[in-house]
């Protein structure tokens, strides 16, 4: 009997030890992130310290135009797919935790200040939906009904302090601010924006919401600290009297645009980056660039703005020095550059080259390539530093 008990003990000990070696080392997530594989419905998980992938999660549906926000603890990624899928991914265990189909056609999402509410923005049916960040259960929704029976595509959703979300109605021409203090019954205030807002952003301090306009030249601005003052327009008529070029890809806005006391915004249908003073909101200058900008992204220190371009100029990337307002570097990192993401403190930028099936890592001081790896048709790159930012 005693030898049998001893044997059982040994077996149990072996199992326990095996379980221990198979379990994960204790680690943080501050240097992790993911790359969207838009054609394969998968994400490649990456580590920015070793500049390499460490995992992959697939089965995420249509990820063309997918975007990602991170949980408050930067462990979980919420992936919003084109097909309305919302997937929660555990970066530590490299696995899909939960996936829900929340709409027919979605364009992105955001997470609340307290980290408890994940909100998706939808084209079909037009509106936003709020989910419990833990369980992905539906909490409430705000249909974007801008006229009786008419629903708008929602663009530019961004989180604002106070568990509020600001977003723009592409068809409705309005900016809406929904307060989710009570997640089950949000309250919404509406402001005029202008014709066809195509995307929006919140400044890093959470104060101003800006919506870029496609249907007219200008940017709509709303002061979230003083909603009673209403919305207004900046950079109005920036292209007056000039013929717009055909826009082969809509520019994207996100809260990276503030640098050196100025906002840097892609001009629609022009080979220009618009620069406005972030206190007076007056136009300061325009930077002539290689093509129609898609992203104009400020480095974390605000010293540089990196710009990529719409088809057919999407093989170029240009770097603007924010002190002089001049283009200081023109790069050709690969074919079909879709996205750029700075590491947390900005020593490097990761660039997705879709048609080269490659992510390229570039040093932001020397502009040398310091790494890269193969990924099938990479698009968005998202690092966990986003979890600590307002407006994401």
């Amino acid at each position, binding site marked *: 009997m005693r030898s049998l008990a001893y044997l059982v003990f040994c077996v149990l000990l072996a199992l326990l030890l095996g379980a221990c070696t198979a379990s994960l080392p204790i680690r943080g997530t501050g240097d992790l992130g993911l790359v969207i594989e*838009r054609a394969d419905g998968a994400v490649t998980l990456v580590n920015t310290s070793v500049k390499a992938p460490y995992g992959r999660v697939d089965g995420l549906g249509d990820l063309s135009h997918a975007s990602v926000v991170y949980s408050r603890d930067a462990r979980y990624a919420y992936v919003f797919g084109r*097909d309305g899928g919302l997937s929660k991914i555990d970066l530590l265990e490299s696995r899909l935790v939960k996936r829900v189909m929340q709409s027919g*056609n979605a364009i992105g999402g955001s997470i609340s200040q307290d980290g408890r509410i994940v909100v998706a923005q939808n*084209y079909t049916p037009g509106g936003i939906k709020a989910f419990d960040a833990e369980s992905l259960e539906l909490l409430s929704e705000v249909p974007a009904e801008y006229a009786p029976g008419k629903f708008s595509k929602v663009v530019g959703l961004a989180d604002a302090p106070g568990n509020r979300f600001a977003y723009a109605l592409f068809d409705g021409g309005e900016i809406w601010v929904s307060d989710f203090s009570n997640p089950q019954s949000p309250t919404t205030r509406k402001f005029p924006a202008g014709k066809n807002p*195509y995307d929006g952003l919140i400044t890093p301090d959470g104060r101003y919401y800006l919506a870029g306009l496609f249907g007219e030249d200008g940017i709509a601005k709303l002061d979230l600290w003083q909603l009673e003052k209403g919305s207004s327009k900046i950079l109005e008529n920036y292209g007056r009297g000039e013929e717009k070029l*055909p*826009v082969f890809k*809509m520019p994207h806005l996100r809260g990276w645009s503030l640098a050196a006391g100025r906002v840097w915004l892609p001009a629609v249908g022009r080979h220009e980056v618009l620069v406005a003073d972030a206190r007076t909101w007056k136009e300061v200058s325009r930077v002539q660039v290689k093509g129609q900008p898609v992203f104009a992204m400020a480095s974390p220190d605000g010293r540089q703005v990196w710009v990529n371009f719409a*088809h*057919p100029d999407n093989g170029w990337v240009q770097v603007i020095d924010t002190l002089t307002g001049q283009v200081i570097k023109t790069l050709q990192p690969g074919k079909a550059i879709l996205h750029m993401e700075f590491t947390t403190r900005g020593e490097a930028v990761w660039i997705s080259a879709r048609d080269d099936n490659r992510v390229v890592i570039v040093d932001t001081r020397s502009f040398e390539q310091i790494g890269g790896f193969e990924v099938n048709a990479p698009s968005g790159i998202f690092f966990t530093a986003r979890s600590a930012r307002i407006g994401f």
Partner: protein
Amino acid sequence: MDTGYSFARPKQSRLTAIKVLITCNRERSHMRIQPLCILAVLAFVPNANAENLSPSDLTRLVRQDCGSCHGMRLTGGLGTPLTREALAGRSPESLTATILYGRPGTTMPAWKSLLSVAQAEWISARLLEGFPEESR
């Protein structure tokens, strides 16, 4: 795979025909074709020839670049859906005209600076029969 596009310049006679079509289209509110317009097109547009066409490049262009608005699976986004079902009843000529000249007042740009008439015709025909997947 070589993805550098080598697009042929639009042929003038066909352009004229398509312009006639556009004019006809604008007379009716949403891109329905009148019989006369079809005749005009048939008179001017020869069969789409394959010269200078690279089907794999065009397939990639539609899936990836048109896909930035219409969705990679062409199920729609900021742009309208372009699936076979969604386009049922549309004529190839009206699609070709939309591709080349865009739809003023919407986000659909004119692609005539990047695509030849033959290439736009090829894309229209493929869209109507259900657009092919990219081969790897």
